[in-house]
């Protein structure tokens, strides 16, 4: 119903033409025509401009009668004709009556048209204003609904945003922690490097000196053995040699020095790995070999790796990956730590790396208890942890996820039938950025 009204108001155009029959009605004509007929006219007929009869009254053509026809004007145009038939004898009187009738019709016509136009414009304007009000009403209710929704959901929205902020904050904390650990490690490494330098250098010199002592001792011993004139001295020297276990000391001293040197060498390696792992100096990204980055991570974790843990490295040569290696080391660290912490006895961790030219694929497969299927898709969620309260932050895998996706890569976890979990990382070698 409402639609129909709107349509009608849209269809109507101010100025649309009206037909004569639409403007003038029988009720308008009848009172005017009656006196004319009473005054002696035989018939009165009104036609449109094409001579189609709109209205007629009285008998048709009568013998000895004359028809008077006059045009009816509206808006400067002939819109109809008035025909009056009258007995021949009455002609002049009826012509004047007909003229009067014509003028009356014209006035009624103009007034009717005026009334119709007025009411039509009025209706158009009213319905247009109504349409506009409807539109305003519609917009208001839309906006009201939006505000109501907003008010209703405000608490939920606030909770969501708070949660997001908490996550972001805790991620920042985690990264901050990693950064300070790295800085500490780098600082310690630097402090250790200096003394370690002179320790190994001195040890090397010490080794040479020990060799000289031994050579000198041998020289004395050989020279003394030929002194048959002084048997007593020879005998006491031999006893002293045995008493001081010089034979054993001679061999052991060399071993001790070389073992100490080996130890210092190991300390040096650990320190340099520690420095590499922390990457404190790296601000920019640069091409890195992920195999060696994994190795560095394993070195740093060596104290966490118990003797019965088996680490299998299935490395294939990898193309350089443009990244901030410290971030990827953090990913590796979190994955490896997870495996180490979850499954302490008889752990077998298989690390596989390969590349198909477009992507680098890394898998970390352990023989641990695996992850139950119902929680598998939650492990990357922030704060999700199965560890005891206090022992895990629930952030490790989230951080890993963020870093990997930050490089346009993906990280997934699968748990094969036979147990264990396999984390797979795919990193695109060429990135959009």
């Amino acid at each position, binding site marked *: 119903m409402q639609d129909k009204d709107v349509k009608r108001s849209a269809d109507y*155009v*101010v100025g649309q033409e009206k037909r004569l029959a639409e403007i003038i009605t029988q009720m308008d004509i009848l009172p005017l025509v009656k006196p004319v007929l009473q005054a002696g006219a035989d018939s009165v007929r009104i036609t449109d401009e094409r001579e189609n009869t709109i209205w007629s009254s009285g008998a048709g053509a009568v013998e000895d009668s004359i028809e008077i026809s006059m045009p009816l004007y*509206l808006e400067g145009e002939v819109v109809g004709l008035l025909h009056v038939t009258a007995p021949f004898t009455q002609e002049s009187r009826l012509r004047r009556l007909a003229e009067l009738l014509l003028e009356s019709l014209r006035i009624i016509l103009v007034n009717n048209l005026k009334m119709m136009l007025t009411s039509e414009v*009025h209706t158009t*304007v009213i319905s247009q204003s109504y349409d506009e009000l409807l539109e305003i009403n519609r917009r208001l209710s839309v906006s009201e609904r939006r505000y109501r929704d907003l008010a209703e959901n405000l608490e939920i929205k606030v909770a969501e945003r708070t949660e997001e902020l908490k996550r972001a904050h805790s991620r920042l904390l985690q990264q901050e922690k990693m950064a300070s650990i790295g800085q500490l490690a780098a600082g310690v490494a630097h402090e250790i490097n200096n003394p370690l330098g002179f320790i190994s250098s001195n040890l090397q010199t010490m080794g040479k000196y020990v060799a000289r002592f031994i050579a000198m001792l041998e020289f004395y011993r050989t020279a003394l053995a030929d002194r048959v004139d002084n048997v007593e001295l020879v005998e006491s020297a031999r006893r002293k040699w045995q008493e001081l276990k010089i034979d054993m000391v001679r061999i052991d001293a060399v071993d001790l020095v070389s073992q100490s040197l080996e130890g210092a060498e190991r300390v040096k390696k650990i320190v340099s790995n520690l420095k590499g792992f922390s990457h404190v100096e790296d601000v920019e990204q640069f091409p890195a070999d992920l195999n060696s980055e994994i190795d560095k991570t394993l070195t740093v974790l060596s104290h966490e790796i118990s003797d019965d843990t088996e680490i299998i490295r299935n490395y294939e040569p990898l193309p350089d990956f443009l990244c901030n290696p410290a971030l990827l080391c953090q990913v590796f660290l979190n994955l490896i730590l997870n495996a180490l912490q979850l499954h302490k006895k008889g752990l077998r961790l298989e690390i596989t790396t390969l590349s198909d030219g477009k992507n680098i694929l890394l898998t970390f497969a352990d023989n641990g208890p695996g992850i139950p299927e119902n929680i598998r898709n939650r492990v990357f969620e922030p704060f999700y942890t199965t560890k005891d309260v206090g022992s895990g932050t629930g952030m490790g895998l989230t951080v890993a996820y963020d870093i990997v996706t930050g490089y346009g890569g993906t990280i997934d976890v699968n748990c094969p039938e036979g147990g264990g979990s396999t984390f797979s990382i795919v990193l695109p070698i060429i990135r959009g950025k």
Partner: protein
Amino acid sequence: MIEYDEFDKRMVLKLVYYGPALSGKTTNLLQLHDLLAREGRGDLMVLDTADDRTLFFDLLPFFLVAPSGLKIKIKVYTVPGQVRHDATRKAVLQRADGVAFIADSQLTQSCNNVESFENLEKNLAFVGLDAGTIPLVIQFNKRDLPDILPEAEIRQTWSPTGIPIRMASALNGIGVIDTFATLAGIAYDHLDLRYRLNVDHGLDRSEFLRKLTASTED
């Protein structure tokens, strides 16, 4: 165009006198009614006026027949100028074939002229007409009053737009027919392009204008 009936050989056009309140739109129509010959022109219909302010609109119809038999009716309307009658203006402006904008030359009315012209552009867009192409004439009325915008200034402002400018004193009947003939002429050019009034109907521009503007003195 209000309607075009090819079968009936009938064309009904609409020209609209637009402008701010009291700028003389109705006076223009009254003068046209008085100055132009009765033949071919209908009566001026003033609809529902209170206190001499046009509430609905005024209508002055013209009627002519082309040599081909094409009947052409031209309905010339005024709109109410007062701001609050915007809905009526929109209704009257629908399907207009041309607009005469009647501006008030008085310095004090410049603001109203601008506002009304902006309203015209807005409402043309509302009824789906292109303000850039619709036949348009601007009449600066009330040239007989003191404190009016100088003609040179008006021409300097408007000549870059290419819109014809006419000076008038409608109360004294000056410039009224000129404005109407200018608008009718441009409207004819537009119609001729589409309906080939000259070629198909034997009605050329000067004959069209002569029929519309034949004055009572001729």
